[in-house]
């Protein structure tokens, strides 16, 4: 009988469609995704003093620091939003973006042992990373909500409208942009390992180039094109707009950023799929 006369469950071939995500398989391995999430969350803080409290420690102290430096020393405005709320939102969203990006960028390197030995749908790992970072984000965001409510009861004319329901969409948008960029970087880091280090450094610098610690309205017109060009700007501004009703993000910026997200995500998956097949021989 010829090869094609059989009913194969699996056919292993030299070339496979680069865009095939294998959604069916990923669904089959959903237990594995959850276990990866558990592994990431449970093991990060084993044998530490504060344990999961570290999740809160970082944004709280960064917020205090930023209030002192940017509000009181540099005297940068916050569009009338209480500084605590203004900075903490920026920090929480920015750290969600960067920590997801850096962990996606390391996805091949930190999983090279399992990737080299066992087959399972590789995309389960990036998906698990998104979920674990989301959980971290939600814990931090819950604290923000508490502080927000405290301000509301103390007379801050808050801005609570149905628009708040759009927040999850912005978070998802952030996650996808960050994953797309992360996967692109991860595919290059299998060849050039220093890129992961460079990425961390540039992200820490990049924080000052995105409206994290200041609103877009404080940016002078000369620099504006640069901020518009940066797809993260729209995300941060949208998020603040939904929380506080401030900010002057334009529809063009939003569409541009969504466009970038789609392109980066597709390119990221394409490169990831391409690399996943050969990286065992490279790394």
């Amino acid at each position, binding site marked *: *009988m010829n*090869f094609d006369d*059989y*009913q*194969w*469950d*699996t*056919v*292993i*071939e*030299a070339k*496979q469609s680069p865009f095939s995500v294998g959604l069916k398989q990923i669904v089959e*391995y959903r*237990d*594995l995704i959850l*276990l*990866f999430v*558990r*592994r990431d969350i*449970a*093991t990060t803080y*084993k*044998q530490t003093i504060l344990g999961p409290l570290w999740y809160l420690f970082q944004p709280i102290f960064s917020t205090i620091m930023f209030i002192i430096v940017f509000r009181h020393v540099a005297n940068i405005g916050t569009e009338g939003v209480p500084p605590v709320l203004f900075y903490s939102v920026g920090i929480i969203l920015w750290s969600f973006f960067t920590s997801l990006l850096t962990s996606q960028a390391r996805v091949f390197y930190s999983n090279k*042992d*399992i*990737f*080299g*030995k*066992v*087959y*399972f749908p590789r995309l389960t790992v990036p998906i698990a990373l998104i979920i674990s970072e989301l959980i971290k984000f939600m814990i931090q965001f819950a604290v923000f909500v508490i502080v927000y409510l405290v301000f509301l009861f103390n007379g801050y004319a808050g801005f609570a409208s149905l628009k708040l329901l759009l927040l999850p969409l912005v978070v998802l948008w952030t996650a996808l942009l960050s994953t797309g960029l992360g996967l692109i970087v991860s595919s290059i880091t299998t*060849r*050039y*390992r220093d890129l992961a280090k460079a990425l961390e450094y540039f992200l820490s610098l990049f924080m000052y180039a995105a409206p994290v610690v200041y609103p877009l309205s404080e940016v002078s017109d000369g620099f504006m094109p640069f901020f518009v060009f940066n797809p993260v700007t729209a995300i941060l501004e949208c998020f603040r707009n939904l929380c506080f009703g401030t900010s002057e993000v334009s529809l063009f910026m939003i569409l541009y950023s969504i466009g970038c997200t789609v392109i980066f995500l597709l390119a990221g998956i394409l490169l990831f799929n391409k690399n996943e*097949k*050969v990286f*065992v*021989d*490279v790394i």
Partner: protein
Amino acid sequence: MDDVVIKAENIGKYYRLGQINTGMFYSDARSWMSRKLGKEDKTLKIGEELKDKTGFWALDDINFEIKQGDRIGIIGKNGAGKSTLLKILSRVTAPTKGRIGIRGNVASLLEVGTGFHPEMTGRENIYLNGAILGMKRAEINDKLDEIIAFSEINEHIDTPVKRYSSGMYVRLAFAIAANLESDILIADEVLAVGDAEFQKRALGKMNDLSSKQGRTVLFVSHRMNAVKTLCQNGIVLDKGRIVHQGNIDSCITKYQSRMYDKEASKDLSLYNNEFFDLQGYTLVDRDGKEVTGPVENSESVFVRIELDMKKVHNAFTTGYAIYNADGMLMYWSYLTDDYDEDNNVKPGKNVLTGEIPAHFLNEGEYYIYFSASLHYIQWLVNPEEDSPCLKLHIQGGLSESPFWTIKRPGLCAPVVKWKVKN
């Protein structure tokens, strides 16, 4: 009824030699530029070829069919392509050409304990590892007690695995993989771990899986006796090509004799190194005459090694490893077993003879591989990889008794002293 579960068609895997790239973007870019411009590549050293053009086929032209319930042993020397083939079958790496069709799900035991997280407990790792290997949560729940029992971890199951001894670690890992529900099981040297007792149990478990539960098993091991007990059929690989397919006994014989043919045709000077030149490696009888034909078991045979020592190291030792026709290692022998300062190699020419005692081995063919090493430091010539080989054929002379003139049952056929008191 056609029950082919794996069919490989013209599988090939190409590896580039050396580094894939220089590892630095700048050099890669420059190298790429100069190639585009048709200039000499400055990143290459003088006399070096362009790396892209050199490479080798780790596997080439591999075709086979495996039927439901078959137990296939894949044998070949290190570097023959066994592991590459298993990696392709378990989809860890993709072939460069060809295609493989698989029916049913595949579980691979390429290396036990893959994906264990040291900070997590044994129980948590069972779930994680099981899921990596493709089990659903419910399946693991069902198998949990069985896994724990087989691993003998018992009360330590809720301790982080980083506190486990290496034996416990391996036992747990094997227990998870062996209890997997899969139609096809791919196993690479899994039995080379753990203590003898555990190895025996592991082999029994593997046997159980394939013979009683009718699973298809692909098994790679250097231990010919393990392959022999477990598998019915085999594939012999050499330099990335299939040189023989058939029942396991014919495969093992083929493997042994092929290795011998290959080694026998080689020039001894290939094994020269900074410590010695190998000038002779022969079998001789008591009178120093070279042995060619079959030898009676009542005669001692001597392995004669001629070395021209260029450098003497105090950890230096040499000797031989002797395998029977089934590929089972009979024993290793070293010059330094019988340590004596005076009876040792000196700079310059040395002729060493090591006895293979009379009335000790059984009738049959034996393969004797040369070995040399700096003990516990490095191999100079590794008998398990690439080393000169001699063939010894023992026939007759098994005992003084008229009752035993043919091959005896058992690995050895020693003649021992008996005493009778009446």
